[in-house]
């Protein structure tokens, strides 16, 4: 293998990504582009690629961390490459990215669109799909333009279309741009959305791998998950595992936002610790602020605090300390932002984006918003904390059709645990200490009460 084509072992996915000016077809090929797809289509059978992906240990980067090869293996594997496929199958790249605090896929979509196109050729070939969609969130206008450009170029060079590169495999690839709704990222809701229906999730089973888009076997994978494929094909399974020998295989794009010194994204070997991401890469907290806690992987993950900072950011380690790796994007809380207000903001998002199908979610999320608003504004009661804990139970896994509701519970239940004192203080003092107006109002009321009390006493004398 030509050395120049070996992907950088540290950051294969983002090494050539440039959001100002992404590589065009020629540029991408000069950096080893389409070598992975070439290897798949011309040197391997779909089953061999499936084995490679299984052996690589690649896990889904869309939030749940499900092993990609295993997911693909549920697809009925008749061969679409012999031209006599009994029925179509579909591949969908999930580029809906609407989880607050998550912005990693955008970098790949805007910065290196050809990589996703190549990845989808490999995935579609493996599962035997002749039609593929990129389900893109409506707000990513620049990504839509760049993906379309990359797709056009790929058609021109016969990397898409009929009989790709002289093989027997054909693929049509389309961009579907959505219109802004978080639930569309859930894979069965996404399928309904693509069919032109209201995007409620579907009850499972049947699973999409067997009966998905238009009733046909369908694989939905996250953009970052797919983007690993060209590199696994090009450099092999051993190389992929050697990136992070002690953790889940491969690299991960970690992020950080909130009031840290250098918010951003970094592709690191899977298993970098929270501390490394927060302090070595994000530069720690902004001047004058201290660290309170963080959500390790987007809005729907449990808070972690200082004692957890040495945890490696891989699926098992983060789960062991009671949270989820999710999307790997840290949302960092500082000491001058109110934890109650933070949870209220998150819960409002979930309440707004609930599709309304399941009662615990449809009614529970707005109820939690109402209680949290009351506490934040200084009208909370101690019993409210019990109600919140009960709501966490009502909305937990197994009680709803999709993971939106349990996701909404995660930051809330962990905040109740780690920031219990803050909740109590709001209730006892009847105001939010982080918010000067709230305190002033409270003090004003208190002073007025004192005055009228003393006046009453004077009058009584």
């Amino acid at each position, binding site marked *: 293998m030509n050395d120049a084509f070996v992907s950088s072992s540290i950051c294969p996915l983002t090494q050539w990504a440039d959001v100002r000016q992404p590589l065009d077809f020629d540029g991408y090929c000069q950096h080893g582009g389409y070598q992975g797809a070439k290897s798949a289509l011309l040197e391997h059978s779909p089953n061999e690629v499936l084995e490679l992906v299984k052996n690589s240990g690649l896990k889904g980067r869309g939030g749940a961390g499900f092993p990609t090869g295993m997911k693909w293996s549920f697809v009925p594997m008749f061969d679409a490459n012999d031209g006599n496929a009994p029925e179509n199958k579909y591949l969908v790249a999930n580029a809906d*990215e*609407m*989880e*607050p*605090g*998550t*912005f990693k896929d*955008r970098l790949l979509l805007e910065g290196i669109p050809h990589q996703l196109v190549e990845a989808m050729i490999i995935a579609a070939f493996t599962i035997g799909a002749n039609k593929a969609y990129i389900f893109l*969130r*409506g*707000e*990513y*206008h*620049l990504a839509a333009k760049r993906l379309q450009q990359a797709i056009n170029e790929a058609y021109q060079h016969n990397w898409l279309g009929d009989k790709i590169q002289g093989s027997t495999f054909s693929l*049509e690839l*389309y961009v*579907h*741009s*959505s*219109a*802004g*709704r*978080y639930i569309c990222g859930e894979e069965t809701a996404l399928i309904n*959305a*693509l*069919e*032109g*229906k*209201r*995007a409620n999730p579907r009850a499972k089973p049947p699973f999409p791998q067997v009966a998905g888009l*238009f009733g046909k076997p369908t694989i939905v994978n996250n953009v970052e998950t797919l983007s690993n494929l060209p590199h696994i094909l090009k450099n092999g399974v051993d190389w992929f595992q050697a990136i992070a020998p002690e953790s889940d295989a491969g690299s991960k794009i970690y*992020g*950080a*936002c*909130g*009031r840290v010194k250098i*918010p*951003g*994204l970094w592709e690191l070997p899977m298993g970098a610790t929270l501390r490394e991401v927060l302090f070595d890469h994000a530069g720690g907290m902004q001047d004058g602020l201290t660290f309170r806690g963080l959500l390790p992987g987007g*809005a729907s993950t449990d808070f972690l605090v200082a004692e957890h900072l040495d945890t490696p950011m891989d699926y098992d380690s983060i789960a062991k300390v009671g949270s989820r790796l999710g999307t790997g*994007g840290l*949302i*960092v*809380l*500082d000491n001058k*932002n109110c934890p109650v*207000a*933070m949870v209220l*903001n*998150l819960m409002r*998002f979930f309440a*707004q*984006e609930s599709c309304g199908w399941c009662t615990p979610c449809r009614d529970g999320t707005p109820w939690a918003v109402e209680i949290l608003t009351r506490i934040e504004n200084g009208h909370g009661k101690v019993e409210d904390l019990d109600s919140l804990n009960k709501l966490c139970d009502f909305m937990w896994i197994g009680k709803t059709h999709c993971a939106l509701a349990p996701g909404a519970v995660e930051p809330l239940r962990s905040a109740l645990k780690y920031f219990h004192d803050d909740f109590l203080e709001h209730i006892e003092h009847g105001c939010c200490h982080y918010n000067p107006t709230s305190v002033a109002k409270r003090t004003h009321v208190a002073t007025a009460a004192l005055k009228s009390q003393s006046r009453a006493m004077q009058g009584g004398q």
Partner: protein
Amino acid sequence: METIDTITIDYQHYLTASEIAAIEHEASIMETREAAGIEALKVVQNHRGWVSDDSLYAISDLLAMPVAQLEGVATFYNLIYRQAVGEHVIHLCDSIACHLTDMNGVLEAIKQHLQIDYGQTTQDGKFTLLSNACLGGCDKAPVMMIGSMHYEQLTPDRAVEILQQLANQELPS
């Protein structure tokens, strides 16, 4: 027997040729016509600013799908407007990263400057103010989107400046 007068409206003539062409293209790449529903709503909204009842009927006619189903889709999405909006629609991100970096200050400045609240349009019809879930620019928060442009690292002053620039822009004639 009494008969009820019915009116048949030919909605094919309501949509322009370029709208129909764009919608037909979308329909051609999906397995069913109704699957082009969202794209069709977006096409019409791009041409007309928002999706009126007439537009909704016209699209459901063209795609041969029930109007109620299309309405269910249209109202489900945050970026389909079922009411008239201003020339520029401001989508200010109110999700967590923007909350932590004081989008509230930006919101107050915008409200003050335009004298409108969320969901309202300025009297001159220039601006409508809406909130938006995370815009995927959390490392450059606070963020707002106007049209296809994302404006990042906002401060109250910079937000007002951007609105002033947009207000002064000549409409392409």
